[in-house]
């Protein structure tokens, strides 16, 4: 069987190291591409929302007699935005090898995110309409529910990072704190997406 001439025998226990042809780390690029895909998923839900709101003629929005708790959601927005700062603090801490800051930052972010989710659950039960009430209700619960699912996934990621940081993982080198940075990028995405959802659904 024809085969290429092999280099002189030296022990290969693994593959040759791949050439690095980009300055971006593969894992960071992966999460950015994943987020691009997520943005499009939100895009489809926004499309459905705007179909119900703009293409279908509505006299008022939200339709009578429904109302949206704008100010409660504003408080929630502030909570989630704050959690992005605590997340940033956690990442900066481990970059300076300050483990207590990492653990405190992740814990705070997790608790703020959990608060957001609990307030949203409470809002859902008292909002006065259900997913089956008009396309309005469907697209409202669709968008905020999709976002809530993302917060839930983000909380999971934060929890895993927290467990590992309590166990002494991660370090200041760029390669060693990807396990904090990537959940962080996801969390910032969830945060920015909420601002867009809040402005679109509640404010305008």
């Amino acid at each position: 069987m024809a085969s290429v001439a092999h280099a002189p025998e030296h022990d290969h226990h693994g593959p040759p190291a791949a050439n690095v042809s980009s300055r971006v780390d593969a894992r960071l690029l992966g999460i950015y591409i994943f987020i691009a895909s997520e943005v499009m998923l939100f895009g489809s839900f926004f499309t459905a929302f705007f179909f119900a709101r703009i293409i279908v003629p509505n006299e008022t929005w939200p339709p009578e007699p429904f109302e949206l708790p704008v100010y409660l959601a504003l408080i929630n927005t502030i909570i989630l935005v704050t959690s992005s700062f605590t997340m940033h603090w956690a990442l900066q801490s481990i970059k300076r090898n300050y483990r207590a800051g990492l653990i405190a930052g992740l814990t705070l972010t997790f608790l703020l995110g959990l608060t957001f989710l609990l307030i949203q659950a409470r809002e859902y039960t008292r909002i006065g309409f259900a997913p089956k009430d008009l396309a309005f209700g469907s697209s409202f619960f669709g968008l905020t529910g999709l976002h809530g699912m993302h917060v839930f996934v983000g909380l999971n990621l934060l929890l895993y990072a927290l467990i590992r940081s309590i166990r002494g993982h991660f370090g200041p080198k760029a390669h060693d704190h990807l396990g904090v940075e990537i959940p962080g990028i996801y969390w910032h995405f969830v945060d920015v997406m909420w601002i867009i959802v809040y402005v679109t659904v509640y404010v305008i």
Partner: protein
Amino acid sequence: MAVAAPQTRHAEHEGPPVRPTGRRRWTAGGWLRVAWIVPLAFLLVPVLVLALRHWLSYPSSPFSVLNPLDDSGWNDDFWRFAKQDLQPLITTWTVVVPFAFLAGIGGFDYWAYWISGRPTRPEDHSGHGARTWRDYFRVNTDHKVIGIQYVVTTIIFFIAGGLLAMFLRAELAKPGMQIVDPQGYNGLFSVHAALMIFLFIIPAFAGLGNYVIPLMIGAPDMAFPRLNALSFWLLPIAGLMMLSSYLVGPFAAGWTNYVPLAVQQPEGNLFFQMGVQWAGASSILTALNFLVTIITMRAPGMTFWRMPLLVWANFATSTLVVIATPFIAGSQFFILFDRVLHTNFFDAGEGGYPLGYQHIFWFYSHPAVYIMMLPGFGIVSEVISVFARKPIFGYRLMALSLMAILILGFSVWAHHMFVSGMAAWLRVPMMVTTMIIAVPTGIKVFSWLATLWEGRIRFKTPMLFALGFVSMFVIGGLSGVYLGSIPIDIHTSDTYFVVAHIHYVLFGGSLFTIYAGFYYWFPKMTGRMYNEALGKLHFWLTFIGFNATFFPMHWIGVRGMPRRVADYDPQFANWNLIISIASFFLGASTLVFLYNMLVSWRSGEPAPGNPWRALTLEWQVSSPPPVFNFDEIPQVVGSPYEYGVRGARHAVLNGAPTTQGREAAPMEESVP
């Protein structure tokens, strides 16, 4: 499968991976763990769903009508409500059972270690390569094993989809109803289309790309091997889910699943919605993997302008998949919510917008046409250049036209909706963009023709399929231009003209390129040559059968025979009988392909490293390639297509310039 010498060399160093024994075999990732975890999940779902619904006192909970004091027919009520509960049950099953399966087979093992904070097992590469056939039924992180897993799986679903088409044609051979009822007929063409699109064409390209791309760009593996393994195992889940809709009656609203029909259909429709989610997740994750691999793992010197066109094509396709696929996920979620949660996304009576579904669906599904076509363009570019022994004509324009199609592909979706009653002002702009997208496609066709011009053409099977593709795709592309113009579309909408068009594009287009790819890389993947005579026989049978089946459909379509209807006017009886006979001939021609593949894989002639005298990197290593592809990462120094150019080099491998296949003149049949 023949094991190449380099593989055994590595195997000596590491030995086969240690498999658990005794009781631990039941808890380690594998089929034994699947054997108990999947039935457990299957039984747990109804318990949880019914308990939850009972606890939340939903009126449709069958337990709410269970009153032991009253024996007046509670049994009937119980089953009536239980049947109402079938939708939430099926939905939960189709979410939970696949996760249980993936956990059972070991797809999540690494991440489970990561999550719990335990030390993750360092990759010792013992999972690389396949030592026995059993390794193909395990979670394997080697892109070459995954590529073969993909290709074999997709061929199985291709056969299933083809058999459904045979039933369709049997029913249509005569006017009137003979074999199935109308709902059954609708189920046949819906499952046929869904399997062919989501379980064959899209993943077959992903499988070929998986095998070839890391080799082509000089990488030892994909960027995320574990994710790669997971995305493969999502695929059989999606396929079995779609097929298992036959347990409750197949989904029958077409692969387009338009509302409000989709919401009114029986439970089988849920299997399509969830099957699409699993197949979509699989292709998004694979596309993400391709993009990161192509961007970050190219060999030194492999600039974007030195990448083989197949890599370019998969780069463009993966971008499309990542951006567009979430829209079909969204569209099917909305239908799922409308069915199960009784939301009103598309109910006009409740403020919904029914046409919104079509907009969201086609915003994915038109780009999906290019997802099903661009990798084929890449395969054909490789094959034509190699077998015409000439550099590809207009390399840069070939790459740029792929990117142009990518961008324009997002601006044409509403040409599927000219007769839907959508906003009239949207029609002409969509017609214009549709005409414009023919330009980059035309650039590609003319570049292939210019590559063939004065080439030393070798009519091997891959080349025959590539040439068959170019000619048939031009027919399909032209009828696409017809359909893109509003007046013709209004006349031929929902007729067999559309059926003819889509099959000229997806069968004469995509499937021919997939066949070309299968034959072209068969020696590389299996280490054995296929039978050339049988390959050529397969091509001619397929080519003739294909045209005899689908060309007359143009005619009966223009004459007004509607598609997706089980019965038809007797005036079309003769043509339909001819089409049905031709389609059985076409179906039978696949047997030649299967026989050739199976027998050659087992006992074909051993393949040399570079049987086609090609320049690209995958042909510069042994067939099949060593476990880790390369001993050293090659240094790329030039274009991959400089056939017949003296002194041109594509890469330097192990200190020696790649010479195999470089020269155009000395060929087996024509020595000057």
